[in-house]
């Protein structure tokens, strides 16, 4: 009997007595069809109503993050990684959301401030997603913000919340080196959080590997904008 329950599509019912079953099958299909149509309409309406807000939320969130790690630039533009180089536009026919992006920030004087990059790797518990600002001219970081993490509350999540840790990244020299305790002796060092070494190291590793991957592209991006 359990088999009858799992039947998701009425079409799966085997035909036994022809005449009444014909009616029944059509009715089953009809009901499902009507139901599906109603559901579809409801969903489309809801989707239409909420989509702008959702997109706006996402954009705002990203904007806040980019501005934070690029030291509040006047404006920023989105660049796409296309064929091993950065480009302003995506090739036609591809979904821009599926392409890795880098954000280029400009100061009030229309001078480039730096690039913001997003990257994610495994942390202590699960993936850690980080955005950071980077100035290719000085090879310095401008700031770092953890976008997503499930690190241990009270310990690992200090990578998000501990200002002493987060603030070190502004002005740090790439590539970064994590140190255990004490004072930073050079700008490449980042003092890790006591008791949350793995999470701290994950952030450093994410930044280093993102720079290894995206740094050449950023360096190769034309120095001056034409226009």
């Amino acid at each position, binding site marked *: 009997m359990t088999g009858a*329950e799992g039947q998701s599509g*009425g079409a799966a019912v085997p035909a036994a007595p022809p005449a009444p079953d014909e009616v029944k099958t059509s009715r089953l299909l009809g*009901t499902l069809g009507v139901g599906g149509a109603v559901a579809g309409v409801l969903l489309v309406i809801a989707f239409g109503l909420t989509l702008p807000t959702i997109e706006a939320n996402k954009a705002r969130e990203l904007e806040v993050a980019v501005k934070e790690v690029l030291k509040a630039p006047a404006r920023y533009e989105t660049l796409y990684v296309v064929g091993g180089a950065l480009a302003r536009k995506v090739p036609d026919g591809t979904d821009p959301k599926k392409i890795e992006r880098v954000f280029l920030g400009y100061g009030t004087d229309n001078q480039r401030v730096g690039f913001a990059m997003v990257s994610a790797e495994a942390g202590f518990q699960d993936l850690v997603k980080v955005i950071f600002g980077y100035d290719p001219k000085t090879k310095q970081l401008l700031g770092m913000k953890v976008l997503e993490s499930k690190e241990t509350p009270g310990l690992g999540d200090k990578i998000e919340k501990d200002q002493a840790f987060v603030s070190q990244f502004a002005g740090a020299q790439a590539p970064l080196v994590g140190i255990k305790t004490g004072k930073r002796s050079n700008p490449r060092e980042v003092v890790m959080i006591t008791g949350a070494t793995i999470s701290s190291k994950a952030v450093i590793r994410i930044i280093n590997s993102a720079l290894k991957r995206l740094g050449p592209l950023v360096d190769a991006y034309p120095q001056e904008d034409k226009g």
Partner: protein
Amino acid sequence: MSGEVSPADLHCGAHGASAGVGPRRAVPPGEDLVKGFWRENPVLVQLLGLCPTLAVTNSVANSAVMGIATFFVLVGSSLLVSASRRFIPNEVRITSYILIIATFVSIAEMALQALVPDIHKALGAFVALIVVNCIILGRQEAFAGRNPVGRSVLDAVGMGSGFMIAMLIMGSVREVLGSGTFLGVSLFGPGFEPWVIMVLPPGGFFTLAFVLLTVAWFKRRKALKAREAERHDVAVVERAA
């Protein structure tokens, strides 16, 4: 439908949930509403829908939002199921229910994403998982599918509130102990040492276990007292006779 067991029954009924009372005896409308609050509380008594009760209750805000979303889906789908119960052929009953529920869940998810993006992010996949919350499918099977609209909505409101009550109990205990805050407001000042475990997965299991232990303890005490009283009555009657 006698003799048939729905997936919802099988799947959650394995640990002895009584899936609804059925329409046999006349019940006052208040009863439909109130029974879900405590006596037939879907979580604490029927042990249904434990996944969200454990997974998202690490803060009061998350629990409340999850509770509201579930409430919305439950009431909405009960209304729709009850209203259209005469048009749905028995064979595609479950499929139709799931379709209806999934629609409401999708709507709820989009609404949450638009209105409270932070909490939506914290709840993660669990909003979508309301679809498979056995409380909801269970109520459609046990109640909304065979009762008039009014009673079904009352029942859904009652059960939804019961779920919310359980969520809030869990959320309060876990947030207060685990972060020292309630709805993000610090309760004890900075000197408080949070019990981090309470907001971690094991804390979820332990908290629910403790809530169930407390419920069981009260029930047992009540039963003992009732037995005591009965014995007393018998003694009185015997003495009288």
